[in-house]
């Protein structure tokens, strides 16, 4: 129980810290997901909205946490704890949306885009000589998965006849069989395939958003950020697989302890924190003193629904850089993305039905 409280608090703190830091690490060209021309990047409206946003996040976050603590003290329902993280994400999005709306209104009223020269910059080198996929960083995940299979096969004869199945928490027992003993290996394989696919799609199927005012700096930064992002994603994958290896070992040796969930959760949490910190530190394009070309990024707010979700059916890209946040986001207007998502949901539904229904 204390474990659930500690984990939920850790996750909530991570969300809260990230929410407070985001305005400082997001691109100043798109404050709160609103495209603004360079001369309005430090506009008083943006500064005021940033201050308001931080206050709202802080007050809303503390209120949400307090509400969950009171509810938990009264009812004692453990499910409330992970729900508190979701509640916090909801509060955060609300604060984001208010700031987004405020800046959009000021932009429209003040005619911020009047008289600017809109431009588009493309780096053809990203297509003719794309960044290399960091295959070497895939090795840890593959080695850990393979090691899990080998250890499992070796231990199988000596495993207890009744296995304690871990689904995050050790929650039921099952008669030993290949399907039960190797259930987490199947999860490893699935997650490895999924994240490798996402990494490949980011390298080969993402569209860079190059700043036409400083195109050379922007293109260099994009290339570096792409490689970095994919590397930390593969690192996170290795840590997820490590968690599954640890949990499998507990199951195979018949170990039942109160700290079993930590074996899965700690590596994943560490991986997420590393990924977020590395991306956050490199999230802004550096100023390398490249002379300004006089062009401004074209107004593209209409493709960002709710300021956060990219929907553009004319864009072939599967992923684009996130505007408010770190990393990439899916292009929900791309039919291929929708088909892949539908396939993924169907696959998950199938797995859940087979495991829980059977």
């Amino acid at each position, binding site marked *: 129980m204390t474990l659930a409280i500690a984990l939920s608090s850790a996750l909530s703190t991570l969300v809260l810290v990230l929410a407070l830091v985001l305005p400082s690490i997001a691109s100043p060209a798109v404050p709160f997901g609103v495209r603004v021309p360079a001369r309005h990047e430090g506009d008083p409206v943006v500064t005021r909205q940033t201050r308001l946003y931080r206050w709202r996040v802080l007050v809303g976050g503390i209120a949400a946490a307090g509400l969950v603590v009171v509810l938990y003290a009264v009812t004692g329902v453990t499910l409330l704890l992970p729900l508190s993280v979701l509640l916090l994400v909801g509060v955060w999005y609300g604060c984001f949306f208010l700031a987004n709306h405020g800046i959009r209104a000021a932009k429209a009223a003040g005619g911020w885009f009047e008289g600017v*020269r809109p*431009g588009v910059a493309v780096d053809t080198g990203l297509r*003719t000589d794309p960044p290399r996929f960091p295959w070497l960083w895939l090795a840890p995940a593959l080695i850990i998965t393979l090691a899990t299979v080998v250890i499992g096969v070796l231990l199988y004869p000596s495993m207890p006849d009744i296995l304690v199945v871990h689904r995050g928490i050790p929650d039921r027992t099952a008669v030993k069989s290949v399907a039960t003993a190797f259930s987490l290996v199947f999860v490893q394989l699935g997650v490895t395939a999924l994240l490798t696919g996402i990494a490949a799609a980011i390298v080969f199927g993402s569209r860079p958003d*190059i700043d036409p005012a400083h195109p050379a700096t922007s293109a260099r930064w994009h290339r570096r950020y792409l490689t970095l992002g994919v590397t930390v994603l593969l690192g996170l994958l290795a840590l997820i697989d490590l968690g599954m290896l640890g949990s499998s070992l507990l199951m195979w040796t018949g170990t039942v302890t109160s700290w079993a969930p930590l074996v899965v959760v700690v590596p994943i949490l560490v991986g997420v924190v590393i990924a977020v910190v590395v991306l956050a530190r490199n999230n802004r394009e550096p100023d390398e003193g490249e002379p300004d070309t006089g*062009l401004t990024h*074209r107004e593209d707010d209409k493709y960002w629904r709710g300021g956060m979700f990219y929907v553009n059916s004319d864009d*072939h890209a599967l992923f684009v850089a996130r505007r408010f946040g770190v990393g990439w986001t899916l292009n929900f207007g791309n039919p291929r993305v929708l088909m892949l998502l539908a396939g993924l949901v169907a696959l998950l539904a199938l797995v859940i039905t087979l495991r829980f229904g059977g």
Partner: protein
Amino acid sequence: MIINVDLGSEVPIYQQLRDRIVEAIAGGVLSEGSSLPSTRVLAADFGINFHTVNKAYDLLRREGLLQLNRKAGAVVTVTPGDPAFRADWTARARTLLAEAVARGVPAGEVLTTCRSVLESFATTQPQDMP
């Protein structure tokens, strides 16, 4: 190479694309054998109609600066200018220089500008015959 397109310019986008590619060849950013993305990929990256890119590529192909084929895509090639090209180029240069003279730009400044532009292309410029 980086291609920057000015969407507010009076110069059509296909013409801007063609001009930037010619400049990149002259400046040595692109050389014989360099490849360019396919029309569809480049159009998608720009967020423009692929016919626009097609038009620019076709212009470059007719000028002998680009080879288009299904397998290798778009590859830069350099065809030396024949007398017809030189005559046409001289006519266009004449108009451009006339613009400067008509607007009162001193001859010395025109020559300095021409020289510095040519020097910026120096790496790829063929040496003058003795």
